[in-house]
């Protein structure tokens, strides 16, 4: 894999606005890292027992019952903007 990274597209997907200077530097840095991955990408590997839990264990899901956690006020206490007990955000569309 030696595809050139499209830094503007990746930044858009990641929702991070980059300056021109950052774009140039990150494109160079990320290309170097991705080149380093070539040996791994080219390896023949069996499918194996892929698991998200490093010990291969199932997730230990909690009982589906209500319990006391944060109050409404506590949940909103760090919000940059809130009103009437809700988070306030700019409109989704212009």
């Amino acid at each position: 894999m030696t595809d050139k990274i499209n830094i503007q597209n990746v930044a858009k997907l990641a929702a991070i606005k980059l300056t021109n200077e950052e774009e140039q530097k990150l494109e160079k840095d990320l290309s170097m890292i991705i080149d380093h991955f070539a040996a791994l990408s080219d390896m023949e590997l069996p499918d194996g027992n892929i698991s998200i839990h490093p010990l291969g264990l199932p997730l230990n899901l909690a009982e589906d019952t209500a319990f006391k956690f944060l109050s409404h006020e506590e949940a909103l206490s760090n919000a940059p903007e809130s009103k009437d007990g809700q988070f306030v955000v700019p409109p989704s569309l212009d």
Partner: protein
Amino acid sequence: MTNYKLSISKINELFKNKDLKPSELYDEVFERAASTESIIHGHLTLFQDENIKKAIDSDKRYADGEELGVLDGIPIAIKDNINISGHATTCSSKMLSNYISPYDATVISRLKKQGTLFTGKTNLDEFAMGSSTENSAYGPTKNPWDPSRVPGGSSGGSAAVVSAGSAIASLGSDTGGSIRQPASFCGVVGFKPTYGTVSRYGLVAFASSLDQIGPITNNVEDAKLIFNSMKGQDPLDATSIKETNVPQPKTENAKIGIIKELMEDGISEDAKLEVHKVAKLLESQGHEIVEVSLPITKMSISIYYLIAPAECSANLSRFDGVRYGNRISGSTSYEMMEATRAAGFGSEVKKRILLGTYALSAGYYDAYYGQALKARAMMKKEFTSVYKDVDYLISPTTPSDPFKFGEKSDNQLEMYMSDLCTIPANLVGMPAISIPTGLSSNGLPLSVQIMSPANTDNTLLDFSQSLEEIVSFSEVPSMIGDKK
């Protein structure tokens, strides 16, 4: 008289015998902070005034013979990515400069129940991404052994404050070596438990399949005490696990494997010599030393730097200027998010989010992230196979002694190589400990790393304690003065 380098059990004995009060130790630790913080910058915040009443409460419990346990009155520092209710959790990021946690992490609530005191929150590489603490938005931490050198990272602040004596112990988090590497650089003990044995609830997530909270201490006995006080399944962390009975490695006449691939290119002569020195000491105690090969460990850096950034790109998507953290205004929600994340994240965090986003994007997923998952499964298989023949594995903790500020910041791959020896334990989920064993030719601390199979944490700690006794490393930074 100084008490800040005594073991927790010794301090507890002094408390019980009324030879020392928790409030006196608390004052002593803050006096150390007053004389060392201007040099090392290990703490981001100090809780001295808020917690002195808690220290006096602890005095009363000991006076009445009603102490809550061996950790009652022990001042511990907490990495600033672990939530303590009512206190800031900045993750050393501008993004969270104004965040006050409304809840306790599970490890904090468990320690509070035992009367543990907290000295404050410690510095880290932003969102725990780094190996030198140079990536903190609030300035780097310096190494107490030589302030021109890095303390390691990401838990550099937690390691430096224990080394300097401004906390009796600390908590760090370890995603690819972030407890063990700074512990090694600062000449203290760092322990990463088996994945899932300690709840991650309340730890700000970096890479959820790799992150684990653990202690940084002056000795192995303290690490064991703190680990056993925090461990246990937690309904608030779905990945936490019940204690499992598995065959335990031997502690007498054990077989120990030196990992061949972690003694080759990229490892300094000093670090190799340290492993051979410790191996000889172990042999003299009746243990058998063999060389083992784990070929996939050569791919550790690539596997880790695909999986960790992929998980980080998902975990850090929560910092969008909506529910918490800072916000930069925009005319639409997307513009607000883009601007907020541009202003809030530092360059290393942006780089890893973008790398993870790329590795997970359409057309590249199978070649990168999918391939890394397959390689991780193969690594697990290789380690499982090797543990059929040996009880423990040994390697250097770090490829070299602590490096100078700026020495690796222009060469990202060289910086990433700092974690070469520590990453496999996170990828496989096994416990691993770093134990200081000697000094390099520069007079700086060197450590060895011991690893064992998953769920053998206490046996690994017992074995490490016996190794610590035969090594009897007693050097301390010159700012401490006398040896331990």
